C-alpha cells in the first residue's frame, strides 16, 4: 500500500460512514468499490421468481446504492408494475418491511437508489431477491445491481 492509499484508508476509517458499518475491535486493511449483480429471466405476468447473490467469503460488503431495470419485449419499462423483496438469508432479515414496487427501491429514470445508510452483508452470505410481476405485461427480464464497498479485515 502506498502513502496515498494509507492516508486515504486512515481518512475513511475516521468517517461516520465507516464507523456505522465497521466491525468493532477489528482492523480494516482495505476498502474497495465493488458491484454485485444478478438477473432474473422471463418472469411471466402474474407470477414470481427469485434469484440469489452470494457474497464472497473474504470481505464484508457494504451496500450504498441499488439499481435495477425491468425489460419487457426488448424495451426497458420506466415504472414496472412489479414488487421486490430482498432477504439476507444469513440473518433472516429483509430489506423492506413488505414487498414493494420495484422502482421505489431500485432507482428510477436512470438514477440509482441511494441508501440513506449503508447495509452490510457478512461474508459467505446469500442475498435472495424475490420478484413478483403483479402487472399484466410480460415476460419480464430483471437486472439488479448492488453497488458498494468490500471491507477487508486483518486476520
Amino acid at each position, binding site marked *: 500500500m502506498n*502513502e496515498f492509499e494509507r*492516508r486515504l484508508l*486512515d*481518512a475513511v476509517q*475516521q*468517517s*461516520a460512514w465507516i*464507523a*456505522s*458499518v465497521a466491525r*468493532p475491535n477489528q482492523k480494516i486493511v482495505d476498502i474497495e468499490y465493488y458491484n454485485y449483480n444478478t438477473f432474473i429471466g422471463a418472469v411471466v405476468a402474474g407470477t414470481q421468481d427469485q434469484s440469489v447473490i452470494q457474497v464472497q467469503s473474504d470481505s464484508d460488503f457494504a*451496500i450504498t446504492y441499488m439499481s435495477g431495470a425491468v425489460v419487457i419485449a426488448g424495451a426497458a419499462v*420506466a*415504472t414496472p*408494475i412489479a414488487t421486490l423483496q430482498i432477504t439476507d438469508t444469513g*440473518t433472516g432479515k429483509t*430489506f*423492506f*418491511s*413488505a*414487498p*414493494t*414496487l420495484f*422502482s*421505489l*427501491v431500485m432507482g*428510477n*429514470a*436512470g438514477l440509482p437508489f441511494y*441508501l*440513506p*445508510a*449503508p*447495509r*452490510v452483508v457478512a461474508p459467505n452470505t446469500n442475498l435472495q431477491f424475490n420478484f413478483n410481476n403483479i*402487472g*399484466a405485461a410480460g415476460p419480464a427480464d430483471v437486472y439488479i445491481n448492488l453497488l458498494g464497498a468490500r471491507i477487508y479485515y486483518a486476520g
Partner: protein
Amino acid sequence: MADVARNWRVPLPPTKWPQDTLKVPHGYGKMPAVDIVNSKIVKREYFTYVLNFMGVTWNNFQTQILEFTKDGDFWLSSVNCLTLNAATNAVVIDYFGLCTITDQVTGYNLFNGGVPIPTMQIDPNPALSPYRLVVANIIEPYCFLRGNSAAVTVSGPGSAAVAEYNIYMVFHGWKEYANAAI
C-alpha cells in the same frame, strides 16, 4: 522541506457516531427538549418501511398505522410514493392529494398541514420538469423510537375521472440497534 511534507499528518478527529445522546428538540409534540442516552447503540443499517394505500377513492382520504418494530429505533430520512390508477395500473403523476405523518407517541406532525403527494412521487417521465423529481426529504432525519407507530393519512381530491387510486408509499431510513447480537 521534503521531510516535513512527508511526515506531516493532520490528526483527523474521530467522527462521533453514534451520538451519545439523542435530543428531541423542544416543541416536538409540544414536549420540552428531551435527552435520551443513546450510547448503547452498536449498529445501524438501511431499512425501508412500506405502506400501500389501496383503493383510495377520489375526494376522500385513507389512514393507515405504520408500526415500527421493537428491535431498533428507526430514523426516517425520506418518503417516496407512486400513485397508480387502480383500474388500469397506469401511473398517475398529478394526484394532488396531501400526506400527513403523525408520531403516535409525541403527537408531532412531521409535515405541518401535510405535504403534496406529487412532491413525494418518483417521476416516471424524465421529460417533465426535473423539479418534480425525487423525494420528500426529511431535512433532519426524524427518530421513531422502537415499538412506536405513526399514523399516515393520504387525502384527495384527485380526479373524478379516476375512481380509485393505489398509492404505494415507502419510508426510507435506517434502524439503530442496541443489541450487539443483531
